[in-house]
């Protein structure tokens, strides 16, 4: 074990990225001319100098053991002189200069259980958050739903048969750590019941002023309950953010009877064609049904296939829905339109239909 304590380094920042760039990238940095997708998960970038860089992209569960990272490192040593990178959607990318190494690498990746794909008109890995693996405010699990959904959709990762890109993201509560709110399909955990207050213990475990101050909507006020100092929650004001539970374990928000999942559609971040858009509510509530969440996987699969069948080439989910109109979307998707779909937050009026542009 290194004797590291003599000199305590701080504020050194991350390693400089140049240390980790393969020579072909150092030599062609900023000189890339064009790229071609050769087959699912494989692309080549060609430089003005004529140099070529091959990339093989593989899916990953994001939650990986050090053993798996060591396996990635071994593959990088075997095929890529030790160089690899990760993508913004948790995929792992191997950077090759020898074209003949592509197929053996893919074979090894498949043997390791990692599919190759995610480029062009495909589904990339699902950006997601911590869920029951690590977070206290999770209304659902993240890794489990992602695994169950991707088991169903793996074909669309490994091929490029979709009309356009499809980006799915999951956040386990409305804090939306993964900023899922601009995805083609967003899976969002929701709480439906305000915190349950443990009046017997609250005064022992928490400071009442900091509990009331923690609530962003001022829904919590001090109160005496059963002769003990405690707090009360104005339930209509609670928007289930879990701030109070963060500062006080006696304000338990998680609730198996009322927690579940909602589905949002039609967001995008890229500027290509249509400007970036938020995702909009499609399905207000589906139950938590571990380990495979069949209601959620069915709903997502249905939406993907509906879009794949009906969208024009390159049309993202939101562009397609905008063209056909939301009433038709609800009809085609077999989703009942309900009160919950109508916005009642600030500026809700801007989301009402303010024209006669309707079809029948």
């Amino acid at each position, binding site marked *: *074990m*290194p004797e*590291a304590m003599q000199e305590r380094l*701080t*504020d*050194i*920042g*991350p*390693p*400089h*990225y140049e*240390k*980790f760039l393969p020579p072909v990238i150092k030599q062609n940095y*900023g000189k*890339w001319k064009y790229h*071609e997708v050769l087959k699912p998960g494989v692309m080549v970038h060609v430089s003005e100098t004529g140099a070529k860089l091959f*990339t093989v992209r593989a*899916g990953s569960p994001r*939650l990986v*053991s*050090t053993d798996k*990272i060591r396996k990635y*490192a071994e593959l*990088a040593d075997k095929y890529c002189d*030790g*160089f*690899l*990178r*990760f993508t*913004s959607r948790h995929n792992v990318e191997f950077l090759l200069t020898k074209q003949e190494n592509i197929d053996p690498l893919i074979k090894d990746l498949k043997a390791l*259980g990692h599919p190759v794909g995610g480029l062009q008109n495909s589904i990339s890995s699902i950006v997601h958050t911590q869920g*029951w*693996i*690590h977070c*206290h405010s*999770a209304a659902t699990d993240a*890794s*489990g739903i992602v695994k169950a959904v*991707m088991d169903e959709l*793996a074909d669309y990762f490994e091929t490029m048969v979709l009309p356009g890109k499809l980006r799915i993201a999951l956040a386990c509560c409305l*804090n*939306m*750590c993964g*900023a899922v*709110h*601009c995805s083609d399909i967003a899976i969002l955990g929701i709480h439906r019941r305000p915190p349950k207050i443990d009046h017997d213990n609250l005064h022992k475990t928490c400071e009442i002023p900091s509990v009331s101050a923690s609530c*962003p909507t001022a829904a919590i006020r001090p109160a005496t309950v059963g002769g003990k100092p405690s707090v009360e929650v104005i339930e209509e004001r609670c928007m289930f*953010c879990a701030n109070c539970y963060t500062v006080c374990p006696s304000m338990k928000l998680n609730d*198996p009877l009322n*927690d579940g999942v909602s589905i949002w559609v039609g967001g995008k971040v*890229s*500027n*290509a*064609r249509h*400007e970036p858009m938020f995702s909009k509510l499609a399905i207000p509530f589906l139950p938590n049904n*571990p*380990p495979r969440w069949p209601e959620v996987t069915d709903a997502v699969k249905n939406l993907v296939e509906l879009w794949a069948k009906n969208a024009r*080439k*390159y049309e993202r989910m939101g562009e397609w829905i905008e063209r056909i109109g939301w009433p038709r979307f609800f009809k085609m998707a077999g989703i009942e339109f309900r009160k919950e779909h109508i916005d009642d937050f*600030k500026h809700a009026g801007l989301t009402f239909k303010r024209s006669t542009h309707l079809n029948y």
Partner: protein
Amino acid sequence: MAETKSQTPKLDELEKGRWPSFVKEIKTAAQKSPMAADLLGQLELSYNEKIGHWKHGGIVGVMGYGGGVIGRYSDVPDKFPNVSHFHTIRINQPAGWFYTSDALRKLCDIWERHGSGLTNMHGSTGDIIFLGTSTPHLEPIFSELTQAGFDLGGSGSDVRTPSCCVGPARCEWACYDTLALAYDLTMNYQDELHRPAFPYKFKFKMSGCPNDCVASIARADCSIIGTWRDSIQMDKDAVREYADRGMDIRSEVVDNCPAKCMDWDGKELHIDNSYCRRCMHCINIMPKALRPGKDRGAVVLLGSKAPIIEGALLSSVLMPFIKIEAPYRQIKDVIERIWDLWCEEGKNRERIGEFIQRVGLGNFLEAIDVEPVAEMVAHPRENPYVFYEEYFVEDEEEEKK
């Protein structure tokens, strides 16, 4: 010591199927780490009860830093004592998420000595996440990390670890050097990153072009997105090659142009670049024939965030075009003016986007000394409630101040 106290039939189900399984990863780690074994047990309990079993706790961290470690405690420590403490550590990733196998192995060595052996590669903020350790290990981890050349990332009300797309390292569309800017800002703002002193978090994300591969417009307080001012570079022969190889240029490219500024006469593609919105669609579809122009720079946008508290926001334009050149004074100057104002006037837990909504974009611009321009709005106001601060008063020569 694979002391598996818990049978895990529900999670075992998730070892099946085509997508790589996180359950297998936890089980692999559990062969060496009792922490990972208890994580599995507690997760099975969550799957049975449909509820999480974590609580937030006292603030934990390393000496001199106010962020980088997230304290986490089990609410069923009697059943799963090895995860009674299960803190995460955020480690600042190298720009563009490039690694060598040796660097990864060094990280693994450290983490196997001091934690569960489980990681996220990467967290949604961009950091390397080490999942699960206890307080006594934090200082040793930190010193071994810094010896290996790594440092902690941000958490709490500070600058969060900046992240960027692969940029000029591998993408022909990068309109500026995203890696260089991410690295420079990270190094320049080490203090702001490690010692939370803001009203709330502040995130930088850099994308090299309007495809915005790091989703900066949706999840960064400051989104820096590459673009160009001159004309799209076109190789006319390559356009014809796409056509010859069967691409329907009219329906696939021209009809999808949001600016309706393209035309295809069957032989030649025309672009009226003065109307082009730099959306990237045509370039995405014909990467061999079209490329962004040569006069490149970036749009700087401010304010995106997830829904809590005042509703979700997308970033909006602050600077329609700037050149991105070291030492990046233009960006740093405006950011520092914004921080000064926000630290002075912002409320606790108010993101910059919410702050701007509260005080008004016009007032905000005045306070940071930036001229309003039409590029900042989708359209001008529709309501007539203009609050004038100055007006004329009878018998006074001058305008009243």
